[in-house]
């Protein structure tokens, strides 16, 4: 429309017009779209790897791959899902939504925004290319513990290091952009305590990213120098310590976990009030809880290392600190439920995903509470119990919140309503199969199955079969999601500006689809 007209003034070759529109774009909505499609592509890539892993584990014995390939797959699956699927999806949502939620014309640094995104396809091309390198892809798990990743890492580890650096640069720049936009570009009258809760979540997440991505960069750089320049940061024979790696990694890694879940909290806190037709209960407590979780995330890292030989005092400290996280997390869950309580609930697809999020994330949170108990963690650690736990918080947690957000905002983005029938099929199949996949993993872990093994003892067979069936069910259900997106972009019932009866906020004052440029003059917030 008018926006399109301003873009391609002189007639250009279609390819060069496409190139200008998408590759050179500095528009937050375009970049948001790029992030989301990139994340979808990575989600499917990582998903195919997950299915290969589950196929291998369908029954005992080596079935379709060698142990080394299996290790490549678990490493790549983890890295791609964390850095390629979940994180970019939230940055995509933030890009799309923050400016129109705070009444800004665009992100604070549009060109930086373009660069942040375009680093990612190159980073992941490098990362994925390692699969075809001599000696194979990285095979040390997404946590890349030294010395398995240093002295014993395959040659492709160096490509992995450079890819991680690029992702880190991308994340830091994206985070800087979010912070600058939220702090400086709010419409007049929008005080911090009137900020939409999703923006709060992204703001806090952005601070976490700025704090810990450099730590990750430090860790991989130390790996690089250990590998090639004769340093011994992580090598005891040279005066270093392999456990140092774990401290550094988890100092990044635990806040990273919250980087993947705090934005999810934000999305869910937007959706539940809309479909409850009631204001979010305890807004200021929700903000406070999010901030507390973020701060606590810096002092709990060693709960990933309870069996690594840290001293008794450290075990006790990190156990207490970890247990403490249950308090603000509990506050969030209670507030969501109270928001729903005595509301006027309706159950469109985004709300269904949000409710499933609250339930299944809580289950993941409760198993997290069990894992926080250091003495029992001696039994749970590095078993399928842990795999079950973190997939519960990441798949029906982070991924479901992304799906919920996409369904919630898709009419606003495309101007069309999605097919509610397909959406509900997608929801119910995903929810059922996710539980079929991940719930049995708790039993496997308790019965003694270690994680990251390509083959297992006979008594673990039945549950592994169930999990594999569930994984294929979940994977195939996502094809419905592709169909929903394709159909909604192509057409459908036109969406109103408000879209949802109970929706509140600046973004719902804009027409659907949102024009290419919005809030050229800032709106005034009065209430």
């Amino acid at each position, binding site marked *: 429309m008018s926006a399109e007209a301003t873009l391609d003034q002189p007639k250009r070759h279609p390819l060069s017009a496409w190139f200008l529109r998408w590759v050179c774009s500095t528009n937050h909505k375009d970049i948001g779209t790029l992030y989301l499609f990139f994340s979808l592509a990575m989600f499917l890539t990582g998903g195919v790897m997950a299915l290969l892993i589950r196929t291998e584990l369908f029954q005992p014995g080596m079935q379709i791959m060698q142990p*080394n390939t299996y290790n490549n797959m678990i490493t790549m699956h983890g890295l791609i899902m964390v850095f390629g699927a979940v994180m970019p999806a939230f940055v995509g949502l933030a890009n799309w939504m923050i400016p129109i939620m705070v009444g800004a014309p665009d992100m604070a640094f549009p060109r930086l925004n373009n660069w942040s995104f375009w680093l990612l396809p190159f980073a992941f091309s490098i990362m994925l290319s390692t699969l075809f390198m001599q000696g194979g892809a990285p095979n040390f798990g997404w946590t890349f513990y030294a010395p398995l990743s240093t002295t014993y890492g395959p040659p492709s580890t160096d490509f992995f290091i450079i890819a991680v650096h690029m992702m880190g640069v991308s994340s830091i720049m994206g985070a800087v952009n979010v912070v600058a936009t939220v702090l400086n570009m709010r419409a007049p009258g929008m005080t911090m305590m009137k900020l939409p809760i999703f923006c709060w979540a992204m703001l806090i997440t952005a601070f976490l990213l700025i704090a810990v991505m450099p730590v990750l960069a430090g860790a991989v750089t130390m790996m690089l120098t250990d590998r090639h320049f004769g340093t011994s940061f992580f090598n005891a024979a040279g005066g270093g310590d392999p456990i140092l790696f774990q401290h550094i990694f988890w100092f990044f890694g635990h806040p990273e976990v919250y980087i993947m879940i705090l934005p999810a909290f934000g999305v869910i806190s937007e959706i539940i009030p809309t479909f409850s037709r009631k204001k979010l209960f305890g807004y200021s407590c929700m903000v406070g809880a999010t901030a507390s979780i973020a701060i606590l995330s810096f002092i709990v890292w060693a709960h990933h290392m309870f*069996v690594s*030989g840290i001293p008794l005092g450290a075990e006790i400290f990190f156990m207490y600190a970890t247990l403490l996280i249950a308090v603000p997390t509990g506050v969030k869950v209670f507030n969501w439920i109270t928001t729903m309580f005595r509301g006027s609930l309706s159950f469109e697809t985004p709300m269904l995903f949000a409710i499933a999020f609250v339930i299944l994330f809580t289950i993941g949170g409760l198993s997290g509470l069990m894992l926080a108990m250091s003495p029992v963690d001696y039994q749970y650690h590095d078993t399928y119990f842990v795999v079950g736990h973190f997939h519960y918080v990441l798949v029906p947690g982070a991924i479901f919140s992304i799906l919920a957000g996409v369904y919630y905002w898709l009419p606003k983005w495309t101007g069309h309503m999605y097919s509610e029938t397909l959406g509900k099929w997608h929801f119910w199949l995903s929810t059922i199969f996710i539980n079929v996949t991940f719930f049995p993993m708790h039993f496997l872990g308790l019965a003694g199955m270690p994680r990251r093994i390509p083959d297992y003892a006979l008594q673990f067979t039945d549950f592994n079969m169930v999990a594999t069936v569930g994984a294929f069910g979940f994977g195939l259900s996502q094809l419905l999601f592709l169909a929903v997106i394709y159909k909604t972009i192509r057409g459908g019932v036109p969406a109103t500006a408000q879209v949802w009866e109970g929706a509140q906020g600046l973004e719902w004052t804009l027409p659907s689809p949102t024009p290419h440029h919005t809030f050229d003059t800032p709106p005034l917030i009065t209430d």
Partner: protein
Amino acid sequence: MEFRKRCCQRLQKCIVGLLSCILPSAAMADMQLNLTRGVTPVSHAQYDLHMMIFWICVAIAVVVFGVMFYAIIRHRKSKGAKPAQFHENTTVEIIWAVVPFLILVVMAIPATKALVLIDDTENADINIKVTGYQWKWQYDYMDEDIQYFSNLSTSQDQIANLAPKGVHYLLEVDHPLVVPVNKKIRFLVTATDVIHSWWVPALGIKRDAVPGFIHESWATIEKPGVYRGQCAELCGVGHGFMPIVVVAKTQEDYEAWIQEQKDQKDEQKAAANKTWTDTELMDLGEKTYNKTCAVCHQTSGQGMPPTFPALKGSPIATGPVSEHIDIVLHGKSGTAMQAFANQLSDTELAAVITYERNAWGNDTSDTVQPSDIAVAKGQQAPMPASTQGQMEKVTVDVDKEYPKEELMTQGEDKYLQYCSVCHQANGQGMPPTFPALTTSTYVNGSAEDHIDRVLNGVPGTAMQAFKQQLNPVDLAAIVTYERNAWNDAKGGVVQPKDIVSRLNGDNKQQSTAQGESK
């Protein structure tokens, strides 16, 4: 045709598998759903805590989800629910922050007690050192002088689905750890290569085995039995294939077992002295190869290049025997190739080398006898003794005090021959890979550290161990040269006997020799 048949079989298996998911299969009956209660005080404490938190979690879930489903059922728009207006209440917020906190305190108290129990490794009756290797465990009875390796004993055929799988598939080993019941056993857990984790659920022990560090753990096993576990930390290709089997015996049985081990050791010595036939060596070699070497170099000898080179047609396996023996005994620093000198018996080593030199078309028709291995191992001793004549010469040389000039001349000669390729004739090296010696803290520091560096090399770097490459006189000459050539002759003189004392200190940790050199 063959392929189709296999596909059919696989499909059949899949269908059976799917069915077994739906129908409760026979295996379902004895399937473990919960944590094991175990047989040690620690595992009992863990189990009790586990059940306590589990029920607390269930209770929280029932309350939270109960309220939620109440709202979902009662407060739906389709039933005409009108939204209430409340959206803030500080009192409730405080209550639902404080109540969970109190629940956490209740959980934390017994957890702290259990941690203190786990940490108490004092007053142990038996000390066993557990060392993780890629991909096996070594057990060292520190009070008994018994050490052995414990390898997966499931056959490669079972793993490759070529043979039916046994009951203890992947959870069985050739030499289990044998311990007595009702004794406090302290485990000292470490590793040689990467991080492993020694986990036996029934003992309540999971301890990361970290190379270069020793971590402690303990168990007092209450009843005799076989307890199985696995490595719990990703440690490379063989991570899923290094199980742990602990056999707990009564005190008498345990003592009998100890005696048996000692007798066996004597028998092994006898076996090493006899001459083995080709077929005996090949048979034992194949067994040992498949158990120890095949994970990396593959049963076919094809390896997984470039990380794990092929042995089939390799220059090592078809070249000079001595080099082949050397690499198997001492490994190759900076690679995954371990030193097997202490992992396998002389007989096994001889057999495996014979096998590698004759299998897969490597038809060198060389046979290596246990006695050859013993000789090769003997060369590790301070005085290289390849020929009688040389040995005499070296013996005489070592005791002599050499004048500085002679050492410097010989040192320069040997330095240019062995060291200057990397460290350069002017001692400037090629940093960062080959450090400069002129400014090195080793060359300018204490003589012992300098000697140790030259003798033992630096694992993971290009710096080799020279202790077997040069005789003590040459070594002394080189060290003396390095300490004086570029540093205004301030470094002092190192005599061959200093080298020998460091070598002995190295091997036997004799403090007397060390004291002398100081």
